[in-house]
């Protein structure tokens, strides 16, 4: 029997049919939707008189447009309000489960679905959002799709796809103190670049990932798209099964045991071949920070910005108002954002609270702490983390995508730097003219306390 990768096993079991010399019809187990990329797909089906094929395999949430304050009040922005209303109407009309604003399960789609046990190993999952790669942390094939494809899944619960090539990134060794999953993925992208994964599905292997929690694995897989890979996966193991067990939509009792037995067959066979392989030493990774306008432009926090004559590179530095060769340490920072589908889970807030405890937020800093879901918010309060944040002068806001993409009220002003735990430092991503510096929740928390970027490695040793 031929040796198969984790990806091969999940893909092969979901192929309904194949077009000769063309794409395959791939069955989709779970379809997640939100307010921004679904309305045109609903319209298209309606125009063509096609019903939604499997409404019970769709889960909807409102996240991109939602305000992070006063969620009990009507949304002020008219267009945002209309988009959310449209989602409610569409879900109601088509019998789709929606966790709307204020619901106890509402949250960022890539935080709430795993939390509810919707995400499970061996599944195929899609969403009109490129960070759907997050769910690959469970050993699922999960990827972002465009709105035309959202309509296709509505109509048939399938997609026409050409099988991507395979890539494996292995990190073995011991991670240094203070090096978080976010640093690991920023390090990988800084080494491989933003298009190394294009055309590939990535598997992350090695003890660095095996020893991570599910939250950490989700952070890593979330940013697969930032190196161009449609998705990233980590083999399911005991950590995965333990996380899924007992969650609202997870299989229960005997059914769960049967699933676990199947999930155990999914990891990549020994000797299976990948089209491309990279490996890194965990000990070389340090707390990371970005200096440019794509996530590949990252350095260790102690390093200096590289020198490069490429005009696009220079344009990027000019936008950030940074000089080639300079260090970012001691740069004054006025905005800090801890949140987004990359880093808004309970662990991220534990890390931040652990650093902040007993300290005070710097006066010059506006800091937004935005949980990924209502459940994360509740847990922050329950664990007493909110008190730590309150005492240190931080404000805990309500769940949503918030300042990651500035579709809501949370925008970074023109010209300001924001040290952010989100996933993209593109020009204007956090508001017109804003300048994003990507980092881990630890580096973000330290920046908020100091009012400037500091060499966090000195605080750890």
């Amino acid at each position, binding site marked *: 029997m031929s040796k198969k990768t984790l990806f091969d096993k999940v893909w092969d079991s979901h192929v309904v049919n194949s077009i000769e010399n063309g794409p395959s019809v791939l069955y989709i187990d779970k379809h997640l939707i939100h307010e921004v990329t679904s309305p*045109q797909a609903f319209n298209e089906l309606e125009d063509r008189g096609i019903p939604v094929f499997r409404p019970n395999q769709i889960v909807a949430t409102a996240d991109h447009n939602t305000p992070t304050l006063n969620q009990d009040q009507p949304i002020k922005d008219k267009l945002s309000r209309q988009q959310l209303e449209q989602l409610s109407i569409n879900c109601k009309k088509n019998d789709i489960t929606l966790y709307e604003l204020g619901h106890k399960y509402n949250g960022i789609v890539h935080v709430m679905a795993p939390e509810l046990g919707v995400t499970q190993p061996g599944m195929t999952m899609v969403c009109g959002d490129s960070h759907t790669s997050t769910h690959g942390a469970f050993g699922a094939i999960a990827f972002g799709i465009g709105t035309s494809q959202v309509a296709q899944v509505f*109509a*048939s619960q399938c997609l026409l796809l050409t099988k991507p090539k395979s890539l494996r990134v292995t990190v073995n060794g011991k991670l240094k103190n203070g090096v978080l999953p976010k640093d690991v993925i920023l390090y990988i992208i800084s080494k491989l670049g933003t298009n190394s994964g294009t055309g590939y599905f990535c598997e992350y292997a090695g003890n660095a990932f095996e020893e991570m929690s599910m939250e950490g694995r989700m952070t890593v897989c979330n940013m697969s798209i930032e190196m161009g890979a449609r998705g990233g996966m980590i083999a399911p193991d005991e950590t995965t099964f333990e996380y899924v067990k007992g969650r609202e939509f997870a299989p229960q009792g005997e059914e769960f045991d049967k699933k676990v037995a199947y999930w155990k067959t999914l990891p990549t066979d020994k000797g299976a071949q990948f089209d491309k392989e990279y490996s890194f030493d965990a000990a070389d990774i340090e707390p990371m920070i970005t200096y440019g306008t794509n996530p590949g432009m990252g350095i260790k926090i102690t390093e200096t910005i590289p020198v490069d004559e490429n005009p696009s590179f220079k344009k990027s530095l000019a936008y950030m108002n940074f000089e080639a060769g300079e260090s970012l340490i001691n740069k004054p920072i006025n905005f800090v954002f801890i949140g987004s589908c990359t880093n808004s889970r309970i662990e991220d807030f534990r890390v931040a609270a652990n650093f902040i405890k007993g300290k005070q937020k710097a006066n010059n800093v506006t800091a937004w702490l935005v949980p990924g879901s209502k459940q994360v918010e509740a847990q922050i309060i329950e664990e007493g983390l909110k008190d730590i944040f309150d005492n240190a002068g931080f404000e805990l806001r309500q769940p949503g995508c918030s300042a990651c993409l500035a579709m809501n009220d949370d925008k970074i002003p023109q010209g300001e730097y924001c040290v952010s735990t989100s996933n993209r430092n593109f020009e204007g991503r956090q508001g017109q003219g804003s300048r994003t510096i990507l980092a881990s929740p630890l580096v973000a928390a330290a920046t908020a306390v100091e009012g400037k970027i500091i060499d966090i490695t000195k605080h750890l040793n």
Partner: protein
Amino acid sequence: MEKFTTLQSRAIPLNIENVDTDQIIPARFLKATDRKGFGDNVFRDWRYHKDGSENSDFVLNNSKYSGRVLVAGDNFGCGSSREHAAWAITDFGFKVVVSSFFADIFKGNALNNGLLPVQVSADFLSKLIKKVENNPETEIEVNLENQTISVKGSELSEDFEIDAYKKTCMINGYDDIDYLVNNKELIEAFETQKTY
């Protein structure tokens, strides 16, 4: 979907690498619930200053250049999955985007909207950009049937790759929904016989 067979047109050179979909259409313009009108805001923050005045340095505001072909730097369309990026580019009037590399999701979105992504070699791209920058009247010919892109009145020509199925769809104006809905019986049979 609109059919695509051949196109002869002038081109607009956008000599920037890693153009992400946030630049093509910023998130604050994604609040519409239909597909139309996104062209008004394509490359919004490069075309206009924050006060709303036009940025005369940006190529789309340079009246020397026109046409239905956008020639862009490497790794075009990276970032968000927003199909609004493909809608904005087509709504502005482009039918073809040429680059040496396209991000996956953008490429798929383009093909689903009758916008042809033409992937060329880095060498061809740099020659093409130079040619168009130096002579805005340069005419480009794209032939989907033959999978060729060439510059009229010059030796500059290259073949490009496209998935055979997608090519048929583009030429005939078919989309994937038609195909999938016609496969419903197979899909239902699959659901009852799933092995996982």
